[in-house]
């Protein structure tokens, strides 16, 4: 077991990217168990497993955000008000379609969506029943930037969601 846990850790470091759990499960027996062990073994460390619905990744722990920002001299890219607006609708009311966003904003939002896709802050989700409907949701990249693992941790999430979706 210990071997498997360490192998998983090594794969995640080598990939330097999120990896599909389903792929990992193909070569790691009892994957879920191994994953939990790894999380456990990292609980006292400066690094952690960042987990989304389908993927996992090795990342830094949020409490070091400030210090890492300083060490690597990182700055948030300036985002225009329209971009933040579309991003907040997708974060609080997503997954949501383009027409849903446009109904809320009262304006064509195609440019903002394109830009957010390219910078990797949002992702497309395809509806399993209706393949031609594209929905948008915030990307793991965006959540990591904010230091959260799920949209539910956003401030006033449920209140804003209820009022925006209506």
């Amino acid at each position: 077991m210990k071997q498997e846990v360490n192998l998983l850790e090594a794969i995640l470091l080598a990939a330097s990217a999120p990896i599909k759990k389903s792929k990992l499960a193909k070569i790691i027996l009892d994957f879920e168990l191994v994953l939990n062990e790894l999380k456990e073994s990292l609980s006292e460390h400066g690094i952690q497993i960042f987990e989304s619905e389908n993927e996992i990744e090795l990342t830094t722990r949020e409490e070091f955000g400030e210090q890492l920002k300083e060490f690597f001299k990182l700055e948030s890219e300036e985002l225009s008000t329209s971009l933040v607006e579309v991003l907040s609708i997708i974060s609080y009311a997503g997954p949501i379609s383009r027409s849903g966003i446009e109904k809320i904003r009262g304006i064509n939002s195609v440019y903002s969506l394109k830009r957010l896709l390219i910078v990797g802050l949002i992702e497309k989700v395809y509806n399993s029943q209706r393949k031609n409907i594209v929905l948008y949701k915030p990307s793991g990249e965006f959540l990591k930037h904010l230091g959260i693992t799920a949209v539910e941790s956003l401030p006033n999430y449920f209140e804003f969601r209820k009022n925006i979706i209506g």
Partner: protein
Amino acid sequence: MSEEVIITESPLEIIFQLLEKKHLDFSSISLVKITDDFLYYIQEKNIETIAVGDYLEALSKLLLLKINHILKIIEPEPEIRINLERYKFVRQARNKLKNLWLAGPIILSSQKLTSKLIFIAPKITINDLMTGLSLLMEEPIVEEKEIVLKKKIHIKNALKILEEILKKEKEIVLQDTFKEKGFLIVIFLASLLLYGEQAIQMEQENIFDKIIIRSNREYTN
């Protein structure tokens, strides 16, 4: 990335800003008070062609509210108010998110650009490569088409054009004279302004029928 960033601000945002400037809430009566400011804003600003229709729609909702107010018709829940009520929360969410964004990045991934670990011949052939590409080229992205409409149209210019034409023609059929959709909307907005000044008459038999515009002015050539 030095890509042209096109800002398309929500008309609801503009309405909020106009209200804030006058320290008004968004009750129906306040909205009636800023209708002219909104109209003025549309006339003065360069609005992206892609957004003109949306601004026009917001304007029509405000105008409806104003007409109802003048005629003392009480509409239980004016649509524009419902939109603004919802948008109020979008603005709040936006401010929270903006601050969170600026405080980041908080959690970092490895920034490494990986390098070769192994080479494994993938199960793809030259043809797969070509297919991958042709799919990309054929992919019908509806959104792409709209991006072609990049030029800005100033309502003032549209007014000028419309007046020039009316000088010569006296009477035109709107849809036959202006074929391009984005432009048609702006001209339509301009004609509403002229109609408001009683400079023209507008006729439409039924909804979706063609609109006939007739000049009331006497032009001397």
